[in-house]
C-alpha cells in the first residue's frame, strides 16, 4: 500500500485506537503501558504532521454512506489539520506529564485512564478531520462519552456529580440543539458536507439565524454562556485531563466545530446577512467578560482556570460570529495560542498539587521559592493568555480586534479590552503570591515531589508560546487560504 494522504487520514483515526488497545492489553505492566501511550502519541504527531503538509490538496475519505449527502466522511483542510496538530502535539507533552502526575499522586485505575485518553484523542482526531456535519457530530458525541470516565475518575460523590453535570449538559445540548441543527441543514440544503463558501446561500435569514443559534448553543463544548457550567464541573478530573482535554481537545473541539460550521456550512458572506450573528457576537462578548468576573471569585486554582477557559473560548465564538476574514483568522489562531497557554497553566496547577498538595490559590504564598520553574511557566502561560508580547497569545487579540473593527463591530473591542484587564486581575496575583510572598517554613513540599516531568512539561509548552509568537508568519500563511481566497468562492 502506498503512502497517500487518504491512508494517513485513516491512520490518524486508527492509530489512537490501536494505542488504546495496546494500553488495555498491557494494563498490568505500567511501564510498557505508558511506553505505548507515548509511542502512539509520537506516531500520531508524525502522521498529523504529514497531514498538515498534505492539507493543501484537500484529500477526502468516504467510509460509508447512510443516505445521499449523509456520509461517514473525512476531509482534510487547514483548520482541521491545525487542530489535529495542536491536539496531537500537545498530547505527547501531556502524556509525559500524565505519567508524572498519575504516579506522583498514586491515582487508581490508571489503565482505564490511559485507555480513555487515547479514545478521546481518537475522537478529537475524528472531529478535526471530519468532512461533514454528521461525522463531526458523531465524533463530538464520542468525545463526550469517552471523556466521561476521565472526569469521573476519582469515583467519589463529588466526581460523579461533576461528571453527571458534565455529560448531562453536553449530551442534552448536543442532542437537543446540535442534532436538530444538523438535520435542519440536511433538510434545507440536502447536504451536510463542509463546503468552501458554505451551503446555506439559499436559506432565508430567519431560518439561518435560528440554525446559527442552534449551533452556537448546541455545540456545548464551546462553553458559550449559559451552557458553560459543565466546564467548571469537569475540573473534578485529574489535572492531566483538565490540561489536555478541558483546555485543548474537548473545548477546542467545541469552538473548532463552531468555526467549521461558520466557515464551511454558513460561509462568511452568508453570516453577514444573519441578524443572529450580531446578537451572538454580543453574547460571546458578554460571556468573555462575565466568565472572567466569575474567575475572580474562585479561590480554587483549577476552577479559576476553568472560568478563564470559558472566557477565552468565547473569543473564538466571537470571532466566528463577527465572521470577517481577520476575525476568523484571529479565532483560528486563538485555538492554537490558547491551547498552549492554558495547558501550561493547568499543568503547573497540577504540578503544584503534586508537589505540595495545594489546590487553593490562598495556599500558594511563597511557593514560588520552592518551585521557581513551575511558577515561571505559570507566569509565561498567564501572560500569553492575557495577550502580551512576546507570547503567542497576543496575536489572536490583534486580529480579533482588527477583525471586529473591519467587521463593523468595533465596540466588541471593549469586551476584549475588559477581558484583558480581568485576566491580569485573576491570573497575575497567583504568580505574585508565589514569588513575592515570604517563603513558607517549614517546606510544604512532599518529599521527592513533584517529579521533574511535572515541571519540564509546562516549561516546554510555556516556551512554545514564545515560539508561537515568532512563528506567526508560517501559521498565518498556512491558515489564510481558508479565510481569504476561499471565503468568496
Amino acid at each position: 500500500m502506498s503512502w497517500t494522504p487518504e491512508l494517513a487520514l485513516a491512520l490518524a483515526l486508527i492509530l489512537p485506537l490501536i494505542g488504546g488497545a495496546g494500553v488495555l492489553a498491557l494494563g498490568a505492566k505500567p511501564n510498557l503501558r505508558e511506553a505505548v501511550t507515548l509511542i502512539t502519541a509520537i506516531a500520531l504527531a508524525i502522521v498529523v504532521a504529514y497531514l498538515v503538509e498534505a492539507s493543501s490538496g484537500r484529500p477526502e475519505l468516504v467510509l460509508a454512506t447512510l443516505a445521499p449527502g449523509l456520509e461517514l466522511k473525512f476531509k482534510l483542510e487547514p483548520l482541521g489539520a491545525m487542530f489535529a496538530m495542536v491536539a496531537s502535539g500537545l498530547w505527547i507533552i501531556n502524556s509525559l506529564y500524565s505519567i508524572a502526575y498519575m504516579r506522583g499522586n498514586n491515582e487508581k485505575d490508571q489503565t482505564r485512564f490511559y485507555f480513555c485518553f487515547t479514545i478521546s484523542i481518537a475522537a478529537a482526531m475524528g472531529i478535526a478531520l471530519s468532512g461533514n456535519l454528521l461525522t463531526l457530530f458523531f465524533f463530538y458525541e464520542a468525545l463526550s462519552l469517552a471523556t466521561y470516565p476521565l472526569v469521573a475518575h476519582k469515583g467519589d460523590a463529588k466526581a460523579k456529580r461533576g461528571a453527571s453535570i458534565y455529560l448531562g449538559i453536553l449530551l442534552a445540548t448536543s442532542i437537543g440543539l446540535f442534532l436538530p441543527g444538523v438535520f435542519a441543514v440536511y433538510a434545507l440544503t440536502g447536504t451536510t458536507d463542509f463546503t468552501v463558501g458554505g451551503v446555506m446561500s439559499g436559506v432565508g435569514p430567519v431560518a439561518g439565524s435560528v440554525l446559527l443559534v442552534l449551533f452556537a448553543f448546541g455545540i456545548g463544548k464551546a462553553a458559550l454562556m449559559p451552557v458553560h457550567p459543565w466546564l467548571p464541573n469537569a475540573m473534578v478530573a485529574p489535572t492531566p485531563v483538565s490540561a489536555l482535554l478541558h483546555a485543548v481537545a474537548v473545548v477546542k473541539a467545541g469552538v473548532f466545530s463552531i468555526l467549521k460550521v461558520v466557515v464551511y456550512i454558513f460561509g462568511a458572506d452568508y453570516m453577514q446577512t444573519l441578524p443572529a450573528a450580531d446578537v451572538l457576537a454580543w453574547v460571546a462578548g458578554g460571556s468573555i467578560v462575565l466568565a472572567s468576573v466569575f474567575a475572580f471569585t474562585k479561590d480554587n486554582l483549577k476552577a479559576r482556570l476553568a472560568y478563564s477557559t470559558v472566557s477565552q473560548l468565547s473569543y473564538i465564538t466571537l470571532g466566528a460570529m463577527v465572521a470577517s476574514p481577520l476575525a476568523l483568522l484571529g479565532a483560528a489562531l486563538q485555538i492554537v495560542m490558547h491551547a498552549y497557554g492554558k495547558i501550561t497553566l493547568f499543568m503547573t496547577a497540577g504540578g503544584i498539587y503534586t508537589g505540595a498538595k495545594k489546590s487553593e490559590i490562598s495556599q500558594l504564598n511563597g511557593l514560588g521559592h520552592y518551585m521557581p520553574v513551575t511558577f515561571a511557566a505559570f507566569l509565561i502561560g498567564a501572560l500569553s493568555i492575557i495577550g502580551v508580547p512576546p507570547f503567542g497569545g497576543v496575536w489572536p487579540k490583534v486580529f480579533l480586534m482588527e477583525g471586529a473593527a473591519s467587521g463593523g463591530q468595533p465596540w466588541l473591542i471593549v469586551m476584549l479590552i475588559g477581558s484583558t484587564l480581568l485576566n491580569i486581575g485573576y491570573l497575575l496575583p497567583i504568580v505574585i503570591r508565589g514569588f513575592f510572598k515570604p517563603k513558607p517554613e517549614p517546606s510544604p513540599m512532599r518529599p521527592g515531589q513533584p517529579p521533574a516531568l511535572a515541571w519540564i512539561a509546562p516549561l516546554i509548552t510555556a516556551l512554545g508560546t514564545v515560539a508561537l509568537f515568532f512563528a506567526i508568519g508560517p501559521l498565518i500563511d498556512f491558515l489564510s487560504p481558508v479565510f481569504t481566497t476561499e471565503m468568496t468562492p
Partner: protein
Amino acid sequence: MTDAVSILNGVSPAWFLIAAGLLAWASPRSELRKALMMLGPIGALAAWFATGETGVYGVLDLGPVVLETFRLDGLSRVWALVFILISFINAVYALHERNRMTDGAALIYAGSAVGAVFAGDMLTLFFFWELTALASAPLIFAVGTPEAQRAGLRYLAIQVLSGVMLLGGAAMWASQTGSWAFDAIGTGSWAGIILMLAIGLKAGFPLLHMWIPDAYPKATGVGSVVLSAFTTKLAIYALARGFAGEDALIVIGLVMAIFPVFYVITSNDLRQTLAYALINQLGFMVVAIGVGGHLGINGAAANAFAGVIYMALMFMVLGAVLLRTGTVKATELGGLYKSMPITTLFAIIGALSVMGAPLFSGFVAKTLILSAAHHEHHDLAYTLLVYASAGVMEISALKVVWFAFFGKDRGLRVKEAPQTMHLGMALAAFLCVFLGVNYPALYGVLPFDMDYKPYKLASVYGQSQLLLGTMLVFGLALYFKLFPLKSDRTILDADWLYRRFGDASARWGAAMGQLLFDAIGKVLGAFISFVRLRLFNLFSPAGALSKEFPSGMMALWTAIMLAGVVLVAYFSPV
C-alpha cells in the same frame, strides 16, 4: 573606532538593552549583572551614534505582518537618546543594589521604551508598549509588602489597559486606513480618540493620571527613578508623533499642569509630591504638543529630555534618603543636610532645574514652551502655565528640599548615601547644569532646527522674579505655620474611583450576582426536585403508571382505544 561602530548601523539600540536585561535575569552573580547594566546602555548608545541616516531599519517580516522595529528620525532620536542616557545613569546609581529581579527589569524596561520610541508601526509600538508595562511592574512588586503588590497590580492593570486600548484603537485605525503605520493620527475618528485616550492613560491625562501618584511612591527606591523616566515620557513621544497640534491637548495639558497644585501642597509622601510635580511637568509638554509647530514640538522634546534627567535626579535623591532613613514622609524627615550634605547639594541642583532657574536645564527647556504658547497667541494658556510653574513645580521642589534636608531637625543621623549613588546623582546633576549652560547641546538634538536664544534679559529677569516670589510665599507659609501637612493621611485622588467606589461597586455587584445566582439555583433546584418527585411518583416501579395493573384495566384501555378508532373511522370521509 568608526569602523567598529559602523557595524551597528541600523541595529536598534533597544536590542542591546533588552538583551542585557535578559542576560541579567539569567545571571546569578551580582557583579555580572552590574556590568551588564552598564554595558547595555553603552552598546545602545554606540548603536544610536552609529546609525547616522534617518530611515527605517530592523524590518521584521513575520509573513503577513511586517514590523518596523527601528524608525530613526528627528523625533525618535531625542527620546531614545535620553532613555539610553538615563538607563546608564540609573545603572551607576543602582550599583549598590543586589536585586536580580529589578536589575533585569530596569534594563528591559529601558529597552522596550527605546523600542517603542523607534517603532515605525502601531503593532510594534503596541508590543513594546506592553513590554514596558510588564518590565516595569517588578520594580513595584519587588518591595514585597502586600500594599506594594496591590499597587503593582493596579499599576500593571492600567498599563496593560493602555496597551490594549492602543491595540484596539490601532486595529480600528488599521481597518479604516488599511495601514498600521504610526504617523499623525488626529482626533477625527473614533479610532483616533481611542488611541489618544490609550496614550493619555500613560501620559497621565486628568482622571487617567491616578496611577502615577499611586504607584510611584510604592516602588523601590531605585525603581521609582526608572519609573519616572520612561513610561510617561514615552507617552509624550507618542502624543507628539500622533497628535501634534490638537487643540484639545492644550486644555488637557493645562488641567494637568494646574490641578496637582493642591496635591503637591497636601501630600505628605515626598515621592508622591514629586509624582504630582511630574504630572504638572507632563502637562507642560502636553500643552506644547497641543500648540504644535516646530517650536511646540521642540519644546515638548526639550522638556522631555531635560525633565527625564531632573526628575530622575529628584527621585534619586529621595531614593538615597529612603535607603538611609527608611522613609520619605515629610513629617518624619528634616535636617538631613547635616548627615547627607552631598545628597543635599544634588537635591538643590535638581530642585533648581525643576523650578527652572536660569543656568539649569529646566529653564532652557521651559522657556521654549512658554515662547511657543506666546507665539501662537495662546495667552490664557501662557498665563496659566506661568501660574502652574509657580504653584506646582516650584513649591514641590522647595518642599522636597526643605522638608527632607532642612526644616525641623528630627535628629536623624544617618550615613551619607553610597558613593555609587552619588556618582549616579552627580551624572544627572552634571547634565542638568551642562544642558542649562551649554544649551545648544540640548537644542542640537531636538527634532527641528531653530534659532532660539533662551538667555534674554527679559526671560532671566522674569524667571528670577517668579522663583523668588514663590520662595517668599513658601517661606512665609512656613514661618507662619500655614503649611497644611499632616502625618499619616491618605489624600483622595481619582484612584478613589476604582480603589474605593469601583471596588465597592464590584463587591456589591459580585455579592448581588451571587445572591441572584443562588436564588436562581435554589428555585431551579426546588423546581427540579419537585418535578423529579412528581415524575418519580408517576413513573417509578411503585408509581402511578407502573403498578401491576389488573387485567381489567387493560381491557378498559382496549375498549377505549377501540372506541377511539371506531369514532375516527366513523367520522372519516369515505
